């Protein structure tokens, strides 16, 4: 007799709980759609505006003087490749070897300090890195240069490469190290011939992601490489690059330059997509944590 009203109340309560659960479902789905829409919209515009301007001349010719139509971005494409190469030459050794240190010897205060510093460095705005390199490279050399740009981008690569390498080297089983050591190998041989080889795939993932991160960086290049509308691959001279060229063309008043800026954006986005897919392919879902 007394249980009847309670049962109806509990039914209402059940319905409320179900409604709350359903609402949460809808809210989360809406949020996911809202998070993905900008990507679709941006990719659409980059492709729609960029494809028509992406022709042979874009890849083979130098920029035309301001206001003239035609020409291309050959120097900027090569410039970006030069800068990425320089950055890798500076950032990869420091990142990979530093990461090996953290994994093999880093379980102490110093190791935690380095980890913390790497995480902080990953969060330092790229423009601030650009200013640092302006102070320590551009001013002493009395010139903007490709080298300065490479140093800035190299510094930005270090945290990603270091933390990924550490993570991957840690995953190599201790038994492999022990096996090498028991055969009489010295420690550095063990690390270079066994551990790094075993962790190779993951480290490549980290490198690809780091390159994807810096290939489109603009702010530090603004203060270090300056940009160049002529052909130059000299490391001690200003050099052109795709991101800077996009910036320069985007804020210009000419439609032809705007079209070229879209084309260069498309090229950058394609490059980064390919690098991201390659990074995924190398590890093939072996490691959830590594992006």
């Amino acid at each position: 007799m007394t249980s009847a009203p309670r049962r109806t109340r509990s039914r209402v309560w059940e319905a409320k709980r179900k409604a709350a659960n359903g609402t949460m479902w809808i809210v989360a789905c809406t949020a996911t759609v809202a998070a993905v829409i900008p990507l679709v919209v941006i990719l659409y515009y980059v492709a729609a505006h960029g494809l028509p301007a992406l022709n042979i001349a874009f890849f083979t010719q130098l920029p035309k003087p301001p206001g003239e139509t035609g020409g291309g971005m050959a120097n900027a494409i090569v410039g970006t490749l030069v800068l990425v190469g320089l950055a890798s030459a500076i950032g990869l050794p420091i990142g990979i070897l530093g990461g090996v240190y953290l994994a093999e010897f880093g379980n102490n205060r110093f190791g935690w300090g380095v980890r913390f510093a790497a995480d902080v460095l990953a969060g330092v705005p790229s423009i601030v890195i650009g200013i640092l390199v302006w102070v320590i490279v551009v001013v002493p050399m009395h010139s903007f240069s490709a080298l300065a740009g490479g140093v800035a981008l190299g510094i930005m690569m270090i945290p990603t490469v270091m933390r990924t390498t550490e993570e991957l080297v840690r995953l190599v089983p201790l038994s492999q190290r022990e096996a090498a050591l028991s055969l009489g190998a010295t420690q550095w041989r063990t690390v270079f011939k066994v551990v790094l080889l075993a962790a190779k795939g993951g480290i490549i993932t980290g490198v690809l992601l780091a390159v994807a991160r810096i290939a489109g960086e603009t702010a530090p290049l603004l203060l270090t490489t300056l940009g160049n509308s002529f052909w130059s691959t000299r490391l001690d001279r200003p050099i052109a690059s795709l991101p800077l060229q996009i910036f320069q063309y985007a804020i210009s008043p000419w439609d032809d330059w705007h079209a070229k800026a879209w084309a260069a954006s498309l090229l950058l986005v394609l490059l980064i997509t390919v690098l991201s897919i390659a990074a995924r392919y190398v590890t093939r879902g072996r490691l959830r944590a590594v992006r």
Partner: protein
Amino acid sequence: MSSVTSRAHSLRQRGVFGANASDRVFRWGLFVFAASVLAIIVVLGYELAHASLPSMRHFGWRFLITSRWDPVHYVFGALPFVYGTLVSSFLALLIAVPIGLGAAVFLAELSPRWLRGPVSFLVELLAAVPSIVYGLWGIFVLLPALRPVQVWLGQHLGFLPLFQGPAYGIGMMAAGLILAIMVIPFITAVSREVLQAVPASQREAAYALGATRWEALRGPVFRYARAGILGAIILGLGRAVGETMAVTMVIGNRPDISLSLLSPSYTLASALANEFLEATVQIHTSALLELALILFAITVVINAIARAMLWSVSRGMAQGVRE
């Protein structure tokens, strides 16, 4: 993982590791590479502080509260830039936090397995698209689309101080929007990992007591992941504060403090991008370097707090949670 390293440690103590002279060289070599990261941070702080000394001496603490930035008369104050940076980042978080968290919940808890991979990849790609591309899109697509919206807001809500003044398109609102788009993938990716790191037993216990998914999430799961999610949001804030190119291209670059979201503003980072190479007088350069120092200090504090929170969720997760 900790057992692996502690076993390595005991091997080392027994003299198996590092007994050889070449190994000692090897170890010190690696040490130098690892230490270089610490060195970069120290040099960064020192050089910025050193280079902004003339400005510090000349303006003192007033630099931080002066709202006038006038290179022609050599009067420099950081307040408009600090204000613009904080307000644009706050706006971005206002939009990005609900969307980012919702998407993280979807990916970690609700999504069918086959959908999780592709959507995660899209979100990560969104995080990898260069800032300059967002800026280009902002100038040519977002700004023209925003102007009619702003005109409407000015007509109907113009009595609020937030929506007063002419609708240029460029300004604080555009900056907040573009920053939100750029920050969403970060908040999504990091908080998804935090949610996935919550032990399954937390959820299972709640389900066993008859909880719905939402109840399990709201109670045990969120309580477990709270610090980590806060860390993810603060990390997003750090991103927004330091973002340069996209903001520079849409914010209007005028060092004024105005409550209105329609009016042009300026951030620390965009001031550096715009004025640094144009500064010809030493005090101007020095004042800009002091802006860089302020920006550096803000981001170091933000990142330190975020890392401390992410690490606190679980020590072992510290390797997993990165951007």
